[in-house]
């Protein structure tokens, strides 16, 4: 109980004094996870939609693969990305290991299947509703995907939010590929793990509260944006 209280007080002071370490770490967390979210969404939203509207030979297989990938342990993803990016690995020459870029790559791999899977479910329903009309209007496959994405954007927002939640709270993979290097690849989750290990519960808790606030803040922000848009249109 005392720890939590101290954590709250510490967090309060760290935030109101705009502690430079805290700011830097938080901003890096945001930067890494938002970049991963952007890239993963760019892949997963069209992919999930495509899977919902196109019947092809290995469709079922791709969908089960996606669902299986959704359950991939982040630590294993981290390990694989580490091996690929390490000096002796196939992409070693790029020198990406222990950089924020490596962390973004790992997070993209972790959240893309999740976003694609949720997208697929939502889009399947919308496609059943629109199918006859879009076929009748002689739309191209790309026009169909654009239409479904636009009209299903609120569902897609939810899918993306789920992805962001997973990314910002993820620690296993980015610890391995980022290395938790001070001033370079330290983010909120890895910093919490470090401070907890050192026994500095107050600081760890402070960082934890900031993390929670960030996650909730982003959620509220996006929901608020989508609501004002809705009110504007209706």
């Amino acid at each position, binding site marked *: 109980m005392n720890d939590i209280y101290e954590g709250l007080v510490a967090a309060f002071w760290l935030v109101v004094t705009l502690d430079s370490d805290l700011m830097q770490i938080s901003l890096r967390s945001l930067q890494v996870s938002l970049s991963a979210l952007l890239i993963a969404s760019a892949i997963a939203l069209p992919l999930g939609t495509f899977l919902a509207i196109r019947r092809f030979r290995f469709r079922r297989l791709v969908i089960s693969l996606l669902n299986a990938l959704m359950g991939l342990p982040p630590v294993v993803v981290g390990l694989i990305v580490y091996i690929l990016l390490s000096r002796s690995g196939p992409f070693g020459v790029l020198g990406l290991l222990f950089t924020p870029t490596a962390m973004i790559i790992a997070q993209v791999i972790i959240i893309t299947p999740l976003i694609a899977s949720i997208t697929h479910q939502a889009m399947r329903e919308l496609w059943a509703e629109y199918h006859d009309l879009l076929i009748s209007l002689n739309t191209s496959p790309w026009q169909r995907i654009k239409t479904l994405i636009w009209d299903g954007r609120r569902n897609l927002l939810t899918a993306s939010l789920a992805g962001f939640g997973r990314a910002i709270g993820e620690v296993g993979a980015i610890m391995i590929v980022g290395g938790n290097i001070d001033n370079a690849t330290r983010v909120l989750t890895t910093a919490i793990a470090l401070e907890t290990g050192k026994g500095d519960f107050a600081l760890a808790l402070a960082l934890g509260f900031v993390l929670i606030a960030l996650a909730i803040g982003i959620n509220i922000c996006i929901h608020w944006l989508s609501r004002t848009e809705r009110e504007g249109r*209706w």
Partner: protein
Amino acid sequence: MSTILPLILKDVAVRRRGKRLLGPVDLTLKSEGLTMIVGPNGSGKTTLLRVMHGVERLSSGSATWAVAEEEARHRQSYVFQTPIMLRRTVADNLRYPLQLIATPRAEVETRIARWAKRIGLEERMGLQATRLSGGEKQKLALARALIRKPDVLFLDEPCANLDGASTRDIESILQTALSEKTRIIMTTHDLGQAKRLARDAIFMLHGVVHETGLATGFFSAPQTAELQAFFRGDIIA
């Protein structure tokens, strides 16, 4: 502008799960005017209409237009028995078919304004289309089908659920389209409407074309016992 007609259906059959829903049907649609398809529930009217439009998979036979498939698809519209509304505003529903074919912006806005007025929904342009009443949705679906100025228009019971005034509105829109040389093929359960609009008619029964003819003879002197029974409102064996 060359016409995409005639449409020739040759030995068309549609089977689903071992059951024959339609066919064999041999039919040629040419000229102008309005062809009315009548028949009891489940007789295959909707299936036939969808076959003509090219959105129903054929089990055998062929449906061919006078022009290439792609061009023909482009120059026809279809209004479904239950209107499908995009989850957008009324105005955006009207805009959608024009957006697909990259129409100049000014032209798009003029056409939307004109159609909004013609279907009496000017006040509802900013409303989500899914919130319209059933009848309003049907009118919007018709306007959305005509806004591209198609050569051929398919309508599946466009006036079901509409009151007298709305039915008259829609019929007058159809008359205008006919006078602008739009070819219309539609179904209805309203025999009065069939007589008012049809140039020729098709009687569907158990998935086949049971009788056809020019409207004059078709309604006043039906040839088959089944069509006579249908007009009397009897149950047809």
